[in-house]
C-alpha cells in the first residue's frame, strides 16, 4: 500500500470520508457519507486505477451497511468503502456512473434487499424474474418469509423484454433456457433484424439456488459444502476462497503443508478446467478430432484428480484450517508426472491448431473486446487477460503462499476469440510449472490445525480458473455464518459478454460463448 492513499483521502475528501488503515491486512477502510459515495468510488476506480471487486450489503441491527471493495495492482492493497444508512432509508446513490463494473452488483442488491440505487438506469427484473415473482420480494432481508412469498405468488402477467433496437422489422430472438445439446440453463434474448446480433440480453438466474440465504445461520464447515458445490467445475477454488475468508476472520494460520497442497490442487483444477474450456472451443468450431483430443485430456485430468484425492472434482479436501486429507508426496509426484504428460499433448494440440486455417478463421477477429471496455466492465480471468488487462490475484494479492512461486501471467493484446484460446493454453503451462515447484518444495508436517472461532468478517479471494472470486463471510462468535456473499468471476464476465457478441452474426455466437468460458452455475449461485 502506498502510504499516500490515506493522506490523499484525507486531503481530497476532507469532511466527506474517514480513513482507517490496517497494516496487517493491507486494508484501508474509508467510511464515506452517502452524498459523496459515487464520486469517491469513481475517484478510486478511474483516477487511482483500483479494481472493483464486490459490493456487500449487510443488514445490521439498526442500519444498512454497504461495503464497496476495491483492490489495487501489485503492491497496493485493499480499499473498502463503507456507507451506511438507517434501516428505514432504502436509498443509496448509484456508483455506476463512474464504476460500470458495479452495474450488476447494484441490481443484485436491489433485487435481494429492496434497496434503491439512485441514478441506476436499469433496476429490477434481474435475479428475481418479474414474470416469475411479484414485486417486494427481498429474499436476503432478515425478515423475509419464503412461505409468504410463495403463497402469494403473483408474477407480472404482461412482462415484455426491454427492447432498445429501433429498426423496422427488428425482433427479439429468444434462445433457451433449453437450447442445445448439453448446456446450462440460461436464456438469451437477441435483438436482431435477421443476420447479426444487434443487441444481446442475457436472462440469467434460471438456476438461482440462493446459496447465500441457505448459508445464513449455518456453521462454517457446512457452508463450505455450499461454497464447493454451487459451481463445482471450479469447486476447489471457491472452497479455498471461503476457507481463506473464515481463516482470516478467525485469524487462523494454516499449516505450511496444507498451503502447498492447496496450491497444487488449485493448479490441477485450473489445468483441468482450461482443458475443458479448450475442448468446448474446439467443439464449437466443429473441429471433431481436436475436440475429441481435448476431451481425452480433460477426462485424463479428471481421472488424475480422482485417483489422487478420491473425487474427480476435488470435493472433500478442504476444511477451514487446512485440508481434510493429507496427500502422500509420492502420489502428488505421480499426479504431476501424469499432468506433465497431458500438458505435452496439449502443447502438441496447440501447435496443430495454430496451423489449422479453417479453425483460426472462425476464432480470429470474432467476439472482440477492447482493452478499455474490458477494464470498464471489470472483466476477469483469461477473458480480461486476452484483452491486455493482465490482472491476476495470485500475483497482485498473493494468498496461500503463491508469492513463493515463479510464474508468468500470460496476456494477449487482440481481445478476440483466438487470443482467449492462446491465454488458456499458456495458463495450462504456467499451472504445471507451479505444480512442479510445489512438489519440489513440499513442506512436511500436518495439514489441519484447529482454531477457535470468533466473531468477525473477512474477504477471501482466489484467482479461480475463470478469474478472480471474492467471498465475503461474517461469522458470529460460535463460528456460524451470518452473512455470506460471493462475487464469482462469471458474474463479471457475463456482464461484459454482450460487448463481444454484438454486431456479429448468429453463427459465431456459440464460438464466442465457448471462448468466454462462462459458467451459469457460478453466476447464478
Amino acid at each position, binding site marked *: 500500500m502506498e502510504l499516500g492513499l490515506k493522506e490523499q483521502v484525507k486531503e481530497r475528501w476532507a469532511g466527506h470520508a474517514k480513513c482507517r488503515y490496517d497494516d496487517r491486512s493491507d486494508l484501508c477502510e474509508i467510511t464515506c457519507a452517502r452524498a459523496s459515495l459515487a464520486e469517491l468510488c469513481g475517484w478510486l476506480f478511474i483516477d487511482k486505477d483500483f479494481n472493483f471487486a464486490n459490493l456487500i450489503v449487510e443488514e445490521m441491527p439498526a442500519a444498512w451497511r454497504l461495503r464497496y471493495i476495491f483492490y489495487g495492482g501489485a503492491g497496493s492493497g485493499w480499499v473498502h468503502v463503507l456507507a451506511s444508512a438507517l434501516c428505514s432509508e432504502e436509498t443509496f446513490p448509484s456508483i455506476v456512473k463512474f464504476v460500470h463494473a458495479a452495474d450488476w452488483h447494484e441490481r443484485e442488491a436491489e433485487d435481494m434487499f429492496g434497496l434503491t440505487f439512485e441514478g441506476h438506469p436499469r433496476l429490477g427484473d434481474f435475479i428475481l*424474474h418479474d414474470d*416469475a415473482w411479484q414485486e417486494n420480494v427481498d429474499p436476503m432481508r432478515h425478515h423475509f418469509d419464503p412461505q409468504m*412469498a410463495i403463497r402469494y405468488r403473483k408474477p407480472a402477467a404482461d412482462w415484455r423484454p426491454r427492447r432498445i433496437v429501433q429498426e423496422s422489422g427488428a425482433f427479439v430472438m429468444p434462445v433457451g*433456457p*433449453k437450447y442445445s*445439446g*448439453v*448446456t*446450462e*440453463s440460461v436464456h438469451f434474448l437477441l435483438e436482431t433484424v435477421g443476420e447479426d446480433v444487434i443487441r444481446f440480453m442475457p436472462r440469467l*438466474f*434460471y*438456476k*438461482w*439456488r*440462493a*446459496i447465500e*440465504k*441457505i448459508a445464513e445461520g449455518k456453521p462454517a464447515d*457446512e457452508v463450505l*459444502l*455450499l461454497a464447493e*458445490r*454451487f*459451481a*463445482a*467445475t471450479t*469447486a476447489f477454488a471457491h472452497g479455498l476462497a471461503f476457507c481463506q475468508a473464515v481463516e482470516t476472520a478467525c485469524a487462523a494460520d494454516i499449516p505450511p503443508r496444507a498451503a502447498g497442497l492447496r496450491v497444487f490442487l488449485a493448479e490441477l483444477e485450473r489445468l483441468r478446467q482450461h482443458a*475443458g474450456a479448450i475442448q468446448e472451443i474446439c467443439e464449437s468450431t466443429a*473441429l471433431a*478430432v481436436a475436440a*475429441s*483430443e481435448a*476431451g*481425452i485430456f*480433460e*477426462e485424463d485430468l*479428471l*481421472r*488424475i*484428480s*480422482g*485417483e*489422487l484425492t*478420491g*473425487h*474427480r*472434482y476435488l*470435493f*472433500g479436501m478442504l476444511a477451514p484450517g487446512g485440508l*481434510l*486429507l493429507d496427500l502422500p508426496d509420492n502420489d502428488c509426484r505421480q499426479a504431476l508426472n501424469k499432468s506433465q504428460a497431458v500438458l505435452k499433448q496439449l502443447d502438441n494440440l496447440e501447435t*496443430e491448431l495454430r*496451423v*489449422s486455417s479453417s479453425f483460426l478463421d472462425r476464432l480470429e477477429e470474432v467476439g472482440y473486446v477492447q482493452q478499455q471496455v474490458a477494464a470498464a466492465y471489470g472483466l476477469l480471468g483469461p477473458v480480461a487477460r486476452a484483452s491486455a488487462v493482465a490482472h491476476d490475484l495470485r500475483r497482485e494479492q498473493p494468498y496461500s503462499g503463491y508469492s513463493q512461486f515463479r510464474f508468468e501471467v500470460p496476456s494477449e493484446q487482440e481481445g478476440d476469440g483466438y487470443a482467449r484460446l492462446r491465454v488458456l493454453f499458456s495458463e495450462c503451462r504456467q499451472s504445471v510449472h507451479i505444480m512442479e515447484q510445489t512438489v519440489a518444495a513440499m513442506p512436511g508436517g500436518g495439514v*489441519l490445525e484447529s482454531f477457535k472461532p470468533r466473531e468477525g468478517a473477512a474477504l477471501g479471494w482466489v484467482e479461480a480458473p475463470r478469474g478472480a472470486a471474492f467471498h465475503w463471510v461474517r461469522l458470529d462468535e460460535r463460528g456460524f455464518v451470518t452473512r455470506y456473499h460471493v462475487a464469482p468471476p462469471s458474474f463479471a464476465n457475463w456482464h461484459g459478454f454482450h460487448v463481444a457478441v454484438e454486431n456479429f452474426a448468429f453463427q459465431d455466437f456459440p464460438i464466442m460463448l465457448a471462448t468466454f468460458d462462462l*459458467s451459469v*452455475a*457460478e453466476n*447464478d449461485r
Partner: protein
Amino acid sequence: MSPWVIKGIRTGIKTSAYPRNAETAAGVTPGLPVSSQMDTGAARALVDICPTQVFTIINGRVNVDVDRCIHCYRCVRGVEQPARWDSTYEWGVESNQKKNLLPAFRKSINICVVDAGDCGSCLNEVRQLSSPYYNIHRLGFFITPTPRHADVLLVVGPGTDHMSLALQKIYNAIPTPKRVVAAGVCALSGGVFAESFTCSEGVTDILPVDVEVPGNPPPPLAILHGLLVAAGRKPPVDLQPGSSQANATGE
C-alpha cells in the same frame, strides 16, 4: 484436414470396455458409502458427522441412503471408524415411484439433457459421455437438443423454481414412450440445496422419475449405467439392500 485424421488415428482407441466388461482405470468413480454392520458408538458418530443425514441405524446396522450422499468424505476422512466405502459405478436405480419398468425402446435412443440448476459438475460428467473415453454413440445413444426428438429425459440439478415450468414443458413435449433419468443427488434429494426456498427437494417433486442415479456428481459410467437401465439393456441395481423400509419411513 489430413493432419487431423492422422492425429486421430495415432491417438488410437481410448474407449472404455464398459458396458461389455468392467472398467478398471483409476479415478473413474468417487465411490459411495455402503450399509454395514458397525458397533453402536461408531455408527452414532457417523450419523452425527454426515451433513445430509445419509446414515440411519436400523437393528444395529448402519443403513445408507445414497440418494443424499454429497461426497463430502467426512465419514471417511478424519474419523476413527470410517464408513464402508465401495468404488463401484453401476448406480442406476429404479425409482421408488416406478417399479418394474418394462423395456420401452428397441433401437437407438435420443436423450434430451436438461439442467435444472446443477452446479456444473453433473453436466460436465454428462459432457464426458461424448468424449472418446465413453463415446455413448457406439451404444446408439444420441444427445438431442429438442425434446420433440427425445426418448429419454436426463435431468440434473435440484429443480430450481425458475426452471420448474421449463421442466414441465420439456417433459410434456417429449413423445411417449418416454423415460426420465434423474442424475445426481441434487436431482434426487436436492443435495445441499434442498433447503433453499428456490429449489425443490429434487426433480422427483416435479417430474415422474423412472431411473435414479446417485452421486455428487455421478461419474460418467454411473450416468451411462442409468441410461442403459432406462433403455432396458442393463438391470437396475439395488444400492440399499434391505433398507426399503427405511426409505419408506424416511428420517
